[in-house]
């Protein structure tokens, strides 16, 4: 027991004095979560910049403008009124996504029930934003058509989000990146240090001492499990107090998931260390594992955004299940898989990694 505590402390000191290990397991993941949350999120949300050229002095032009600047439309649109040349220049620079010209003949034509053209300018090179702009303008014109003809719309879409509380991108990224940080605990916090200690013959010297190998492994694993718990707590605290993540979690399941997730990736680290002969090999292997897991596990985007032939791949990535587990138990994000399946897959991975890890682990070169 005394040896176990001493080995735990030794591993902790070695780990915390190694800047790379602390950097990769805690600091960089936190920055990742904050960074992606900021890029894709924030409170303002996405707004379409629409330019209006109001040449019509009549009632219809005023009505359209009023409906565009209503608080309801203001959530989506940012309206700028100005002269035609000025607006087209702004469109060319990319400051506006579309320009709508309300011609001087507009009110008159409407009064006379004559069809009239409304010019819409957009930048063809900016497909997605101008596509949204065109859609908004068409929708607007359709509504105006009905209104000026005095027709009551019979079918009205009642929009209701199925989330019980609104989720922002940062609510998605914080639990996802926590899962990634546990992957990194396995790769950069377990596999690489172990291979290094094997190369430097630290493991050999320890195993030559009378302390049992179970105790040696116990000290290493217990410390790394602690790192996993630190990761979970740090993400929780920073998520809530710095990034303002809405926590609506299931604490016992989140805690159990953290322990299980950390153990899965720590044991994967042992397996990878056993499969690598040299430090260089271990680093290459870590990257080989890191990239597919990072990008095909729904950490940075949901799997539904991947091309269809890649989607089955996400289902064999253990990280997919851990990220899903954290999203569900930490912020109540919609489930990719049922929670029991997440736990079952991770437990299965743990059994496989521990089995293979013991088979391939080596104390010396």
């Amino acid at each position, binding site marked *: 027991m005394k040896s176990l505590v001493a080995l735990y402390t030794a591993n902790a000191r070695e780990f915390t004095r190694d800047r790379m290990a602390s950097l990769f397991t805690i600091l960089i993941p936190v920055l990742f979560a904050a960074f992606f949350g900021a890029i894709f999120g924030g409170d303002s949300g996405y707004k379409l910049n629409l330019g209006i050229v109001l040449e019509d002095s009549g009632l219809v032009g005023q009505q359209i403008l009023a409906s565009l600047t209503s608080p309801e439309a203001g959530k989506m649109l940012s309206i700028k009124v100005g002269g035609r040349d000025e607006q087209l220049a702004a469109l060319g620079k990319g400051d506006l996504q579309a320009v709508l010209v309300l011609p001087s003949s507009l009110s008159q034509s409407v009064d006379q029930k004559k069809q009239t053209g409304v010019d819409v300018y957009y930048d063809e090179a900016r497909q997605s934003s101008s596509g949204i702009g065109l859609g908004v303008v068409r929708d607007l014109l359709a509504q105006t058509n009905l209104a000026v003809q005095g027709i009551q719309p019979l079918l009205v879409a009642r929009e209701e989000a199925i989330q019980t509380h609104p989720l922002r991108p940062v609510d998605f990224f914080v639990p996802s990146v926590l899962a990634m940080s546990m992957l990194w605990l396995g790769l950069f916090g377990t596999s690489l240090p172990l291979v290094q200690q094997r190369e430097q013959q630290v493991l050999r010297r320890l195993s030559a*001492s*009378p302390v049992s190998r179970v105790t040696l492994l116990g000290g290493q694993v217990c410390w790394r499990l602690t790192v996993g718990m630190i990761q979970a707590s740090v993400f929780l605290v920073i998520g809530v107090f710095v990034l303002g993540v809405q926590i609506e979690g299931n604490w016992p399941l989140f805690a159990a998931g953290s322990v299980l997730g950390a153990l899965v990736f720590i044991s994967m680290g042992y397996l990878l260390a056993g499969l690598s002969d040299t430090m260089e090999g271990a680093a290459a292997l870590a990257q080989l594992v890191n990239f597919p897991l990072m990008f095909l596990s729904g950490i940075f985007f949901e799997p539904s955004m991947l091309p269809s032939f890649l989607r089955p791949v996400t289902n064999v990535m253990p990280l997919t299940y851990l990220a899903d587990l954290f999203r569900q138990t930490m912020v109540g994000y919609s489930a990719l898989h049922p929670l029991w399946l997440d736990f079952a897959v991770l437990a299965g991975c743990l059994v496989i990694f521990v089995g293979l890890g013991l088979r391939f682990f080596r104390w010396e070169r």
Partner: protein
Amino acid sequence: MPEEAVLEVRDLLKTYGETRALDGVSFLVQPGEVFGMLGPNGAGKTTCIECIEGLREADGGAITVLGMKQGADRQRIKSRVGLQLQTTGLFPKLTVLELLRLFATFYPRPLPVSHLIEMVDLKEKKGTRSKDLSGGQRQRLSLALALVGDPELVFLDEPTTGLDPQARRALWDVVGNLKGKGKTVMLTTHYMEEAEQLCDRVAIMDHGKLIEMDRPSALIARHFEEAAIEFNASAGWPTELVSGLPGVKNVASQGSRLVVYSRDVPRTMAALFELGSNRGLDLEEITVRSASLEDVFLKLTGRRIRE
């Protein structure tokens, strides 16, 4: 009265592919003895000592350490012996003090850490991380780690290889201390002067076999009643003629140097000078010395130990 041997090795065998690293090695080490295993690199010293320590599995033979069978009692043996490996891997970011305290928890009755630090003279370095130690300090730390469990038997595998002469002497002092305390030490080395200085008995190993074993002085006396005259023979000294000179017992060539073993140094020297002036050959860099373990080794194996 013969005490029970601390270490008993019988017919040790170990092969790596085609190579016989250990080819029937047998010896006994008595309590309180400093036993040295001498041999060139690749002779099998490390393989031998690591089989005895239980770090490697021998292919055949029997090893008894402190009355316990190596293999079956590996774990019990480990807690009663101390060992210094040829390259000691230490947590690089832990300090001297932290490493000693860590290893102290591995043994049932460890020595006080402060006492060990004193013993290997690392008091000023106790707060230094192991990666920042010099080669000599590192070696002394690894010796302290070997001694932390207060072992009855200590194994040192090339404890002074790669150290400067001063650091080597500091380490010899520590080993001398151990001997003074009645500990048994088995060490390997390829430094002749180290073996002569430290060891009560040495075994000379070559190609996985022990070719001689005795006290250093007895080995020298057995193989040489003569002194050695050494000089630079690159000018073209004819070996056959030199070996026929008066008093010469044997001639050995070591690279560009010729070693002439003589029972009568004045007569041999006179004859050498005469031969030289007749042939127009110079006697460059000539030295005369008494025979050493190095000469025994050269005689037995036909090569210098550090080739």
